[in-house]
């Protein structure tokens, strides 16, 4: 097996991974950094983020306000010390992106413009039209080219971590083009592999969002935290799940049911007037809006489309000029994928899985419980999203905590020592993956994958019951067993065998899905995005003001524990939206 050495490895080259690599290079220019990604960096799913990134910017805003919006938005399951750390670092990081060339939207005087977002009490979302993630990603990638010490391994699939005696020793990667294994030995590894939305069927996520990093860490003893909290974005195209950004509503779009009625007023988000108003109606948080859709559907007030039930997202009153300037990407997508002209017609939308709020448990320095292993971005649970992430907090999370992870890992790499070779472990692991290629019997990959997705949609959806969760848990046990018995691949070649990689990804997804389902079953209350219908409809702070930790237990089901939440200055109280709030003056 080929092997190389690096001081640290970053797995994933989306926003968090690129920011981590740049931060490590700036921390100590002598460090060698291996940046491993299964796709070219600019293909990473950060590219598809639309709305923008939050930072306290205006005179009428404060760090305290951003903190309060985030903590109440997360239904008090955020670690408040981490949120405090986070909100203070958002602005400098967005300025840094500007210095690197990100084309943020500007006011006429040349200063940065901001827009409203759901659950945010002030205009604080920096945006680059509705291609914010695209511009952040390309800016970071192109800037990373200035650093010769960042050695990229583009289209290398990270199949395993090498961990010995509780400490990271490197990663086992597959060079996709040749199918050959490569051991990259390093004392520090940053996981920045994104979420796991592809364990569900209808979602906004790219095909790459398969929870690889979560699966890697989980297998090597790091717990996954708060995995029951999956975010459904309320406005996506039925069928494909393609995202219609929250910025539509941030700019003033409205949601109506089949009778043209603004139904959100029936779900604790009204009254309608005065409109627009912060943290009310369409500017409410995502969990509440997706839940409202679910109820409207039950009441028979949604619109039937060939791709399933929908409501209407109406932009028409914004006018062609504003739509073209602020929302060009979703207008093109609505036209291409739905045949809808957003200037003239409302867009049919429905909720779809969008963001994995849980992830690999880390502290504020992005350290996991495994020595030398760090995590940042959507794959991590650093503690800022709680039970419901606010839109535009994650695009800034990737740069704030990407940087922290890069710096922490760099400091660790400078002080830690390598003992012996990781090659024997890597060889054993590679043998297991190579064996997948040679199964002569077994099921089709797509069969197992689709059954997993259907089971997750059925049992771990927007609303959950004990019965439904149990059924999904049982199904996942069965699917893991069938997966172990074998997936039979059509493709036995080594070079660019994406079917083989798909099988490895499915292995990660099944374990991550199981962590989600069992975490949800154990949370016998309703909070944020986790809603129960079976006698646990209320929030229960006495028993569940706690994080969930899922620990892997070999081939068995995960072991679930709970962990206290850090509360510093905001005591839990009822979570209010709507009401007679402040009128929003849009710029």
């Amino acid at each position, binding site marked *: 097996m080929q092997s190389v050495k690096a001081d640290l490895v970053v797995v994933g080259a989306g926003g968090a991974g690129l920011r981590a690599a740049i931060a490590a290079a700036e921390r100590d220019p002598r460090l060698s950094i291996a940046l491993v990604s299964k796709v070219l960096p600019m*293909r990473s799913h950060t590219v*598809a983020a639309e709305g923008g990134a939050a930072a306290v910017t205006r005179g009428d805003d404060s760090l305290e306000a951003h903190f309060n919006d985030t903590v109440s938005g997360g239904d008090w399951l955020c670690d408040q010390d981490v949120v405090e750390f986070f909100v203070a670092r958002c602005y400098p990081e967005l300025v840094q992106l500007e210095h690197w*060339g990100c*084309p943020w939207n500007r006011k006429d005087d040349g200063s940065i413009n901001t827009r409203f977002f759901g659950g945010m009490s002030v205009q604080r979302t920096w945006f680059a039209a509705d291609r914010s993630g695209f511009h952040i990603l390309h800016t970071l990638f192109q800037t990373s080219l200035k650093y010769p010490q960042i050695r990229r391994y583009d289209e290398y699939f990270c199949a395993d971590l090498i961990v010995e005696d509780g400490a990271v020793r490197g990663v086992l990667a597959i060079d996709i083009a040749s199918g050959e294994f490569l051991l990259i030995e390093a004392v520090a590894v940053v996981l920045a592999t994104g979420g796991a939305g592809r364990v569900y069927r209808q979602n906004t996520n790219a095909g790459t969002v398969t929870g690889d990093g979560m699966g890697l860490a989980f297998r090597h003893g790091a717990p996954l935290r708060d995995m029951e909290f999956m975010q459904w974005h309320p406005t996506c195209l039925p069928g494909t799940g393609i995202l219609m950004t929250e910025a539509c509503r941030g700019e003033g779009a409205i949601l109506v049911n089949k009778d043209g009625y603004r139904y959100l007023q029936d779900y604790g988000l009204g009254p309608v007037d005065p409109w627009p108003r912060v943290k009310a109606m369409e500017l409410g948080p995502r969990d509440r809006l997706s839940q409202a859709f679910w109820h409207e559907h039950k009441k028979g007030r949604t619109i039937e489309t060939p791709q399933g039930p929908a409501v209407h997202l109406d932009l028409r009153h914004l006018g062609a000029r504003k739509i073209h300037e602020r929302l060009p990407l979703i207008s093109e997508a609505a036209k291409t994928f739905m045949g809808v002209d957003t200037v003239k017609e409302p867009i049919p939308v429905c909720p779809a899985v969008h963001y994995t709020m849980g992830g690999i448990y880390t502290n504020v320095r992005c350290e996991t419980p495994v020595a030398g292993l760090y995590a940042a971005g959507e794959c991590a649970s650093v503690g800022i999203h709680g039970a419901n992430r606010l839109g535009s907090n994650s695009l800034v999370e990737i740069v704030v905590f990407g940087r922290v992870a890069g710096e922490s890992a760099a400091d660790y790499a400078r002080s830690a020592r390598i003992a012996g070779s990781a090659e024997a472990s890597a060889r054993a692991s590679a043998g297991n993956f190579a064996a997948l290629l040679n199964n002569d019997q077994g099921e089709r990959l797509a069969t197992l994958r689709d059954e997993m997705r259907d089971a997750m949609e059925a049992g771990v959806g927007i609303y959950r019951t004990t019965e439904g969760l149990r059924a999904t848990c049982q199904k996942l046990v069965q699917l893991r067993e069938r997966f172990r018995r074998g997936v039979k691949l059509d493709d036995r070649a080594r070079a660019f065998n994406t079917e083989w990689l798909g099988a490895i990804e499915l292995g990660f997804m099944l374990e991550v899905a199981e962590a989600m389902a069992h975490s949800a079953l154990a949370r016998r209350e309703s909070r944020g995005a986790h809603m129960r219908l079976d006698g646990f409809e209320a929030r229960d702070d006495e028993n569940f003001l706690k994080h969930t930790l899922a620990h892997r237990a070999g081939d068995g089901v995960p072991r679930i524990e709970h962990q206290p939440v850090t509360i510093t200055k905001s005591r839990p109280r009822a979570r209010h939206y709507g009401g007679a709030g402040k009128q929003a003056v849009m710029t």
Partner: protein
Amino acid sequence: MRTIVLECLRYDPERDEAPRWQRYEVPFTDDMSVLQGLQYIKDHLDGSLTFRWSCRMAICGSCGAMLNGVPKLGCENFLRDYYPGPLRVEPLNHFPIVRDLAIDQSDFLAKLESVKPYLIGEPPAEGTHKQTPREMAEYYQYSQCINCLLCYAACPQYGLNDKFTGPAALALLHRYNADSRDKGREERMAVVNQEDGVWGCTLVGYCSEVCPKGVDPARAVNQNKIESAKDYFLRFLRR
């Protein structure tokens, strides 16, 4: 449900001496993209068919291919528009094939790096640069490039001479040169001026036609020809 025939170019470097065609019959609905057709094949008919894809919404730039000879993104073109077929799906022109529809993208990455696609110069000590919407408009369209490489597959010059820097990389070079925050124009002039820089372009303009994001690389190249000519004469005068 209607059915369409897809003829895909296959090439496995371990087994095939030369590329070959393979036919697949794909049942489809009117909302199915060409990419979804390929995914149907992979899931149900032949798991060995190899292609790249990711976002499904024309922003990641992964799924470019020649569809009946025209470079397009698979995700935003629909099977219904090629009915009754056959639809020929080939890897992007002018690139070496790694396997089936997956091409080798490394030449583009090297070219992208050569144009120094990042802001050069010191940022303000405090806060952001000022940049008015008008100043932003100077470069904004060129920043929309998703690196999908359709323009390279369309460019006859690149087909003849792969040393040519090519449309996307030159458009991104111009994106930084035209940015009021950038001070790197001098450094990039060396790439612009060389024979395989802007002067390699013969202004066919097909690159701009196939761009799925409305970037106009031909215009970027042409503006830099003017810059390059000015640069030449200024240097002549300074002597």
